[in-house]
């Protein structure tokens, strides 16, 4: 199956998995915790999903061997004027850009996006003014898992991968979220481009050995220096 055809299927499956995990696991965790302990709830949910990812990685490794795999798809170089690019990278760029744009518009312009930002800001208050918190949360899980699954398909057309190659992407995702700030998709895009530039030019200027140092270094720096994001407006009362 062509990756372009597989992508929507995988994204849907990912979204389904997200909803299933939300219903089966996360909703229970929320239901059990007192609101005053939100920080611990979030810490626990991180451990929970870390545990889940260990299980999934190793089950997949048992089922399909833990080796690196790759396949070739649309590797021909396309030229447009002075710009040269392989077809798979162009496809990844277009699909990812489209998804980002769609999500940004959806979250930024729709009532649902407004509701979601309200839930991020203050869950109880959102509930009081009539937001269906449960629905917002499961849709968020579906969107998040679905687009992550889609990104996985896109990455698989570019690089070799193994059951264990996901974690650096999680870290990269974290950096982008922290730099961009929660609930701000446009700033996230800028942060992602920034991180990509730091990684690419950093490796070009030093050596491939330093790639992970740069990645985790920007991660630690981001958390310590910009805990509210690069573009934080001071609105804490």
């Amino acid at each position, binding site marked *: 199956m062509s990756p372009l055809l597989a992508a929507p299927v995988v994204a849907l499956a990912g979204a389904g998995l997200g909803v299933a995990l939300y219903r089966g*696991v996360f909703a*229970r*965790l929320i239901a*059990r915790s007192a609101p*005053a302990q*939100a*920080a*611990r709830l*979030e*810490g*626990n*949910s*991180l*451990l*929970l999903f*870390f*545990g*889940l*990812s*260990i*299980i999934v*990685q*190793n*089950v997949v*490794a*048992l089922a399909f061997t*833990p080796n690196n795999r790759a396949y070739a798809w649309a590797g021909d170089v396309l030229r447009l004027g002075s710009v040269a690019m392989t077809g798979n990278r162009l496809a990844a760029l277009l699909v990812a850009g489209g998804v980002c744009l769609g999500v940004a518009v959806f979250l930024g312009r729709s009532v649902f996006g407004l509701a979601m930002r309200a839930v991020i800001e203050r869950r109880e208050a959102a509930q009081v003014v009539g937001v269906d918190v449960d629905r917002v949360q499961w849709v968020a899980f579906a969107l998040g898992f679905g687009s992550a699954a889609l990104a996985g398909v896109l990455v698989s057309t570019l690089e070799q991968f193994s059951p264990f190659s996901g974690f650096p992407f999680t*870290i990269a995702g*974290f950096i982008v979220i*922290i730099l961009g700030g929660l609930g701000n998709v446009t700033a996230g895009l800028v942060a992602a481009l920034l991180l990509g530039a730091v990684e690419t030019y950093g490796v070009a200027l030093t050596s491939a*050995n*330093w790639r*992970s*140092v740069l990645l*985790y*270094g920007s*991660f*630690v720096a981001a*958390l*310590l220096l910009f*805990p509210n994001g690069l573009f934080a407006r001071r609105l804490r009362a």
Partner: protein
Amino acid sequence: MKDLAPNAWWAGLWAATLAVLLALPFVANAYLVGVGLSLLMWLALTQSWCVLSKMTGYVSLGHVVFYGLGAYLVVVTWQQLPLVLAVPLAGLLAAAFAAVVGLPVLRVRGPYFVILTYGLAELVKFSVMAGEAASGTASRILFGTPELTVVYFAMFALALASVALFTWVSRSRFGHGLRSLRENEEAAETLGVPVARYKLLAYVLSAAIPAMVGAVMALRSTYFVVGQVFDPMISVTVIAMAILGGGDNARGPLVGVLFLGLLSELLWASAPLLYMIVLGAILVVFVLLVPDGLLGLFERPRAGGRR
């Protein structure tokens, strides 16, 4: 009488564990001594992890960073510094490292703290790796390490020290301060608990022992690979053991270490992937369904009702 029975049971478990581990090198073969050594290692690591993470609720996913730094220091100073100096120095170095990074790191809370400690450990790992690669050493071998019995009793001492430290912390005024900030940091601060200082102290205290454990384990393995002494799975295993045990005194980690340590001996060699699945499952099941750990299951009927 009813109150005394569980305490006697616990005293018995501690005494039996210590007696078996103490006698092991004199009666058992090298394999069993190795098993005992790894139990002692996990005991020391998990108890020290609890000093910060069980007491304050700041769950560290980067405990391995201290372990790795300790191992690295011993390997770097190998045959230039006597071990009786190098091992305590490893502890001091890690405590100093914790004191320096602690202030900014401990300002970060909740899931961000969890992932930050992971990122920090990976950052140190890859920095050491890049440094080693730049100096052209991919791995190192230690010649003339002390024999197994010496390593074993050094680890025994560290495990004892770790249990003593956590027991002291969990019973002290300091420990009650940590518990109060775990429940509600702002309220604790309002009541006059020096929150920032207590957190930092807990972080520093929890850092020294794992570094010395790493230093001693480097002597046991006699070779040194950066990726191995900074393996994130060490942090994960420590968390799984602590959560499995539950509670916020030294009993919980003991139960967790005995259970998971022996299980890993059974599974690790024959089915490493299966072992990882079990580890992940323990994290999921205990975070979700048994947040008070095995200890909570034991003690709930006696305590009568949950908090």
